[in-house]
């Protein structure tokens, strides 16, 4: 029963990793941009949530109604004003630019919020749990996982069932021909980054309720996001969910064997997948 419990808890943890990874996967899929600042944007969203919860006196989960539009706006402006200028044949300029944004965000947050670890207080929700078939499941991890599945399903729907998704895929396939269809590349990329940061907002709020955070933790979360994306296969949204779950289960199993092995076990599984299946487990982007 212990091991079943470990796997179930790991799966639920994978929900959080999926939320962290989904925005990365989306942006890479649409514009081949590797966003080094993604982890720090998640932390920024967590601080936005914290501030909204404190100022407005609302439950952290409710701050999503503030954080989501705010992060979407930041994403669109960031893409139009900064990142679009860096995109081209060379992949280095966007990498360096997002790295710079990461440094700026960390130091900006440090300046405003100090280095003290913060945590959002979701009240009774944090400790609530229920029993299913002999397992005790935390309500918050279950909600997180359900939201992760819903986010992936929602992104999948946008990509394969809407005109916006068609524009994303066409621009990803061939930017020049997409422009002949009347698509303004700069605007399409802006919308893609806005959508990515909507997911980032959700990830940041759930992260901030689950664990304490400070301005420096972004890059550490980014690694888990990258690993989930690579394990699942680049540009495959359901694969990203699978990657997140595999990473979560690996960490939970590692922690069960020896508490010090939690993070290491995740990295080892990632390296094994990279060695055996360099394109990830589910590399194709198909609806």
């Amino acid at each position, binding site marked *: 029963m212990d091991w079943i419990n470990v796997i179930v808890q790991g799966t639920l943890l994978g929900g959080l990793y999926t939320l962290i990874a989904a925005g990365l996967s989306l942006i890479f899929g649409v514009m081949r941009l590797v966003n080094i600042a993604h982890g720090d944007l998640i932390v920024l969203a967590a601080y936005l949530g914290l501030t909204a919860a404190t100022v407005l006196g609302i439950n952290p989960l409710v701050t999503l109604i503030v954080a989501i539009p705010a992060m979407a706006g930041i994403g669109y402006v960031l893409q139009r004003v900064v990142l679009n200028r860096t995109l081209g044949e060379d992949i280095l300029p966007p990498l360096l630019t997002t790295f710079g944004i990461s440094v700026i965000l960390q130091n900006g947050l440090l300046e405003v919020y100090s280095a003290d670890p913060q945590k959002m207080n979701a009240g009774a929700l944090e400790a609530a749990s229920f029993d299913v078939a002999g397992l005790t499941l935390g309500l918050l991890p279950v909600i997180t996982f359900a939201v992760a599945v819903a986010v992936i399903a929602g992104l999948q729907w946008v990509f394969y069932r809407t005109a916006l998704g068609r524009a994303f895929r066409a621009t990803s*396939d061939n930017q020049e021909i997409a*422009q002949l269809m*009347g698509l303004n590349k700069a605007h399409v990329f802006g919308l893609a980054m806005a959508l990515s940061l909507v997911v980032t907002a959700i990830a940041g709020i759930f992260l901030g309720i689950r664990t304490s955070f400070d301005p420096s933790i972004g890059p550490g979360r980014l690694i888990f996001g990258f690993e989930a994306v690579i394990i699942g296969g680049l540009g495959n949204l359901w694969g990203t969910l699978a990657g997140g779950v595999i990473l979560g289960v690996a960490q939970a199993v590692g922690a069960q064997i020896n508490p010090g092995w939690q993070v290491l076990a995740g990295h080892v599984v990632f390296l094994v997948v990279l060695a055996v299946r360099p394109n990830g487990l589910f590399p194709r982007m198909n609806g």
Partner: protein
Amino acid sequence: MPDPILQISALDARYGDFQALYGVDLTLGEGEVMAIIGANGAGKSTLLRSIAGLMANGPDQIVYRGRPIGALRADQIAGLGIALVPEGRQLFPSLSVEENLLIGGRVKRDGPWSLAAVYDLFPVLKDRRAQPSTSLSGGQQQMVAIGRALMANPDLILFDEISLGLAPIIIRSIYDALPGIVAGGMSAIIVEQDIAKALSVSSRVYCLQEGRVSLEGASCTVSREEISRAYFGIA
């Protein structure tokens, strides 16, 4: 000659250090079908790319219905009613046949072309609409590329090498569809290697040679000698 829909004057175009067009002048009348011929590398595709907005030009070098469009972006030009059927089809591989057509229609101009009209023109596409565009034969892909351009209901359509790499029977069926396409008054520029085909569907012909216009005339009156001189530059 009818009022010009497109007026190109002293158009230069370059790729980095390489200059592809030198002072090209060209006038296209409303509703006219023009052929552009010339050897490989003569600048035919570059000329179409310039009109479609994929090259950076001076604003007044290309004037469309009295409006300077040389400096506009490709997506703005598409909205004004100019559509390009690019060389080598260039369908979107992650989109199905129908999605390729739908994205062509996203500029939402009024006109006769719709999914149903394209399926009427090329019935084979209707049976394959849910398939990935990459699963079609070359000829069927060309039909999708033409349909995708028509979905925008353009006033001016540019065809770049429609017969390149296709079987003769397919080429014939595509050319058979052309009169129906331009019958509604759509203007067209057809870039083509097959000179006989180009002359048969057009009213006027331009020949490019090494980035310059080497011949201009009515398609029915130009002689073979004039064309080979303009084509190869032999005196």
